[in-house]
């Protein structure tokens, strides 16, 4: 029998345990597939750990080797940063332009939206195979089309100067997701804001700079961070399109770690490489976040500020 006193007690007890039952799958998964491996990887980075044979504790030697004795470490790091430096701004710009285009109130725009998004549902394998064939310097259709325009196409995948550009072009094919994120945000901007601006005499470019851009800065921040992380971890395309060549011109950091682990079987060294990448990503993300207070405007903050001003 429940008395009035113990009924609520039981109720709270249930509500204390039940939530943990719901989130239990994630807690188990987190320990087994994330935290455990994370800690283990940190330990491994302090060992000379071949795939077969004894692991030997060597302290920070892996990190020392990385910084002082392995030129491939610096080279691949520079290549990856170079790639990110071209890829991230270009991707953002293209995504933004496409998003603006598909918000235009004209006929058939949904078809274009579908076309632009379509490559994003296609895999890295398919992307690399299709673009690899188009970039083929002997039978590739791209250079043929360029020759029709009177341009002599480069040896895309064979010329070390062009290989990284080739990867940028192929990976920009998946810009659709970022475009959709921009698109939904731009669509959410109230129409009245533009109307008021145009009554005040602001042209489309002025409206874009003064209304669209400031409103979508949180989304820009989101896209910058996710694409920086994606660019630094790029691997599939490199693995399949160039294998790191020609002359190691596309030997990205992801490939460097992958090869150290699964080709050279130096698991400890590869773990040290991976942890360095983790730290770089953390630092970059923090840096972007820190800088964001200068250029990202949140609606809630703007409202608060307005309220504050009113009170004065």
């Amino acid at each position, binding site marked *: 029998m429940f008395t009035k006193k113990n009924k609520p007690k039981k109720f709270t007890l249930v509500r204390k345990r039940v939530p943990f039952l719901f989130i239990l799958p994630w807690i188990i998964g987190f320990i087994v597939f994330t935290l455990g491996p994370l800690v283990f990887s940190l330990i491994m980075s302090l060992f000379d750990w071949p795939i077969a044979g004894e692991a030997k504790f060597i302290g920070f030697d892996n990190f020392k080797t990385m910084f002082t004795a392995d030129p491939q470490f610096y080279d691949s790091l520079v290549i990856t940063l170079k790639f990110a430096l071209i890829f991230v701004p270009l991707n953002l710009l293209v995504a933004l332009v496409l998003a603006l285009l598909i918000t235009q109130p004209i006929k058939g725009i949904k078809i274009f939206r579908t076309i632009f998004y379509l490559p994003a549902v296609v895999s890295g394998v398919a992307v690399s*195979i299709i673009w690899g064939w188009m970039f083929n310097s002997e039978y590739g259709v791209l250079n043929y089309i360029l020759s029709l325009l009177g341009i002599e196409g480069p040896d895309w995948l064979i010329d070390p100067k062009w290989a990284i550009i080739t990867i940028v072009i192929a990976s920009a094919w998946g810009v659709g997701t970022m475009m959709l994120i921009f698109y939904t945000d731009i669509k959410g901007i109230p129409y009245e804001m533009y109307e008021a601006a145009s009554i005040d005499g602001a042209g489309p470019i002025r409206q874009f700079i003064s209304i669209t851009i400031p409103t979508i800065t949180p989304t820009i921040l989101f896209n910058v961070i996710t694409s920086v992380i994606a660019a630094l971890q790029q691997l599939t395309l490199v693995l399949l399109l160039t294998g790191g060549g020609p002359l190691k011109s596309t030997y990205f950091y992801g490939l460097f770690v992958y090869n150290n682990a699964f080709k050279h079987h130096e698991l400890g060294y590869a773990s040290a490489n991976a942890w360095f990448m983790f730290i770089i990503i953390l630092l970059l993300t923090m840096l972007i976040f820190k800088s964001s207070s200068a250029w990202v405007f949140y609606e809630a903050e703007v409202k608060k500020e307005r309220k504050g001003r009113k009170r004065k």
Partner: protein
Amino acid sequence: MKITRKHKIIVYSILVLFSLYFLFPFIWAFITAIKSEAEVFSFPPKFVPDVPLLSNFIDAWNSQPFGTYFKNSMIVTVLTTIGQLISCSLVAYGFARYDFKYKNILFMLLLSTMMIPWDVTMIPLYMEFNMFGWINTLKPLIVPAFFGSAYNIFLLRQFLMNIPKDLENAARIDGANEFQIFYKIFLPIMKAPLTLIAVLNIILVWNDYLGPLIYLNDQSKYTMALGLASFQGVHELQIIPIMAMTLVMIIPPVIVFAFAQKYIVEGISGSIK
């Protein structure tokens, strides 16, 4: 917004130009796939083959055990999707609808896992799965999905936060237990975001190359992505069957996308707010 004729012409020309970039590779892959061998390696390249050979697709399919690859991909995709739907809905519900001790710390932990590069956990995970005896089986690709993924949980939790608390309180008064509330009331409400999660998972898992590359080495276990990539490596000059199978591989995600376009567009807008 009023649009002038000139403005319209400019917009359409830019749209068409971009469409070429996004669409032409597919078209060119198809043109290549239905050519004869002589036409593929002729210069200048032909844009319309003399006789379109659709039989190339059948020959390509039979040139490798693509039936097995396709089946493996299907198994992995279907099972991971089921796993994600079950685990993510439970976990997101727990985080969104209850207050409990350490909730905020745990949720921050969940979000921070999204920032860990896969390189870091790749090697220990390989060793762990090796210890379980799972290498060269489909298990490493499937089992983790039953424990949720941070991105999906986050997305669902955002959705669930917007539903008024009265809903489950009313059900509690009516005598429903906590799991019944989840199952009978909330699960049906979550249909739209769950569809989005399913679609995103199907696209991601179907296309995954690195997972299968690391965990599978026996050809009979290969997925489509892995089979296709290795096929390309071995027969570099067989461009016709390679293009044909690439097109076959992209059919399932494109079909799923075609049916779920609405959910993707709406879901993405919901998840960033």
